[in-house]
């Protein structure tokens, strides 16, 4: 791989972002690795001591912050940027009814509007050089929407769509855009999840469902893949010319993608409902509370 290649990775201080940053830097890339909170940037500072990593403060929620960070990179690298990993994001968990306007807005501000903000600053550089790759971190939650994860799924559905549009629009200028579609990976994403304003209310009519869901997600995270598996997929995407439309990580993700694509809605719904027994209880037995 080209020695002087330059990458920008957002949300790089932990999980997927940190692992990709390390892997690229180990392979000779110069990686501008962004973090939101300086207090949590220590892993990046440690990495910067031994590898060509430049930790960079950037809050994707703030236009000025994004502009400043990308301008810094452009100055240092004389406008060159070969790869952007749009990774910054978090999970907002809660039933739709429990969600405040601010909860939903915060979820979109980072996962969708933030992604667009960073892309908007990086695209002109890539267009100018007539090349570049952008990988947006989606999720299998962007293929199938689950209860309790509705707001998160909504952002990842949007990311899937934005990736398709960016892919078409970027192709006019030699810029390749694809979606990375992970499912459960061993990261802190679940611990970092935020909860809807009223999610913990004792009188929630959804409390039975919450128990189902906790069991379901605990079970799912038992099968979480090591982050190295995902890193290998990213490295493969960087070698692909052209990049594929989307990159799935685990075999079962491919199965889910297949199911979503070819199974009639009602069968998929029945399959999902079977995961959440509360779903199938007759309404008369549910206290409608609040």
């Amino acid at each position, binding site marked *: 791989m080209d020695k002087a290649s330059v990458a920008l990775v957002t949300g790089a201080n932990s999980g997927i972002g940190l692992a990709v940053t390390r892997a690229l830097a180990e392979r000779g890339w110069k990686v501008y690795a962004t973090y939101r909170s300086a207090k949590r940037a220590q892993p990046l500072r440690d990495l910067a001591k031994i590898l060509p990593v430049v930790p960079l403060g950037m809050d994707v929620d703030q236009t000025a912050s994004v502009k400043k960070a990308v301008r810094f990179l452009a100055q240092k690298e004389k406008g060159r940027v070969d790869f952007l990993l749009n990774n910054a994001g978090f999970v907002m968990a809660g039933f739709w009814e429990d969600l405040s306007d601010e909860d939903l807005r915060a979820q*979109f501000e980072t996962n*969708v509007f933030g992604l667009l903000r960073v892309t908007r600053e990086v695209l002109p550089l890539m267009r100018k050089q007539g090349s570049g790759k952008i990988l947006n971190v989606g999720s299998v939650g962007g293929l199938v929407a689950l209860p309790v994860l509705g707001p998160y799924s909504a952002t990842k559905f949007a990311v899937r769509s934005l990736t398709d549009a960016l892919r078409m*629009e970027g192709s006019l200028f030699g810029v390749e855009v694809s979606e990375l579609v992970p499912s459960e990976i061993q990261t802190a994403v679940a611990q970092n999840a935020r909860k809807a304003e009223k999610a913990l209310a004792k009188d929630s009519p959804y409390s039975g469902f919450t128990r189902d869901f906790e069991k379901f997600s605990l079970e799912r995270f038992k099968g979480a893949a090591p982050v190295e598996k995902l890193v290998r997929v990213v490295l493969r995407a960087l070698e692909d010319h052209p990049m594929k439309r989307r990159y799935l990580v685990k075999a079962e993700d491919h199965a889910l993608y297949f199911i979503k694509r070819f199974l009639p809605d009602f069968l998929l719904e029945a399959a999902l409902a079977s995961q959440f027994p509360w779903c199938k209880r007759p*309404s008369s037995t549910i206290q409608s509370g609040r």
Partner: protein
Amino acid sequence: MENQRTVLITGCSSGIGLESAVLMGQKGWRVFATLRDLKKSGPLRGRSRDLPVEILTLDVDDPKSVQKGAAVVLKKAGGLDALVNNAGWGAFGALEDFTDEEIKAQYETNLFGLFRLTRAVLPAMRTRGRGRILNISSVAGKMTFAGVGLYCSSKHAVEALTESLRLELRPFGVEVGMVEPGQFQTRFKDNRRKSQIFQSGRSPYQAVLEKILQYGNGESAKAPGPEVVARTIVKALEDQKMALRYPVGTDARWFPFAQRFLPDGLYDRIVSYTLARFGEARHG
């Protein structure tokens, strides 16, 4: 009439909203037809004169207006049998071109506003143990096209909301679904908000966008009228069991079908070939 069913429909000044308000009134529903601007209620007023249709102002972008509108309707109706989330519009431009404000305006109506009103009527439906929420999504909720990526992404988000809310409300007897129209002759084209940079003629994507716009306008001139969608809405609300999706329009059926069954690589090639032909406008 004691057993008269009640429905609240948003975005009724024209197009799908207007047609469905009229048709549901004709079918005997008590209709609360809302629109953002009462000054634009003329056409609906004219068509619903002898029908059980009440016209109210409601701006889904405005939390206070939503609270008030929902409260007024719930009080008048005593309970709501159905909510049709129809208000929406489409942004036009390359994704790189949109400002923060343009992006947020698109989501404010198509997603946040839809959610706001849904949340406002939900407790009433839940405690009654019945009700239907029908979101007007779009073929753009299943497929993405260049030049309308922002609009498509907002409709994709509506799809996720609908799918997950449907599961969340299943035990309460509240049914959630969506109608996915393709292109119809509505005011969608006129209500389209083009990115400022495109309007000023300085978008890096200008020539391609102009081609796409021209093509889109040509297609919509050939499209059928919105009364077809209104019939689908009535069907969804009167079906014994509401399905998750009701695609309507030839394009709404065929495009997603093609996307479903073509391998990604081939689909990609067709899309980029088509776009490249649009792209030739840059040089010619």
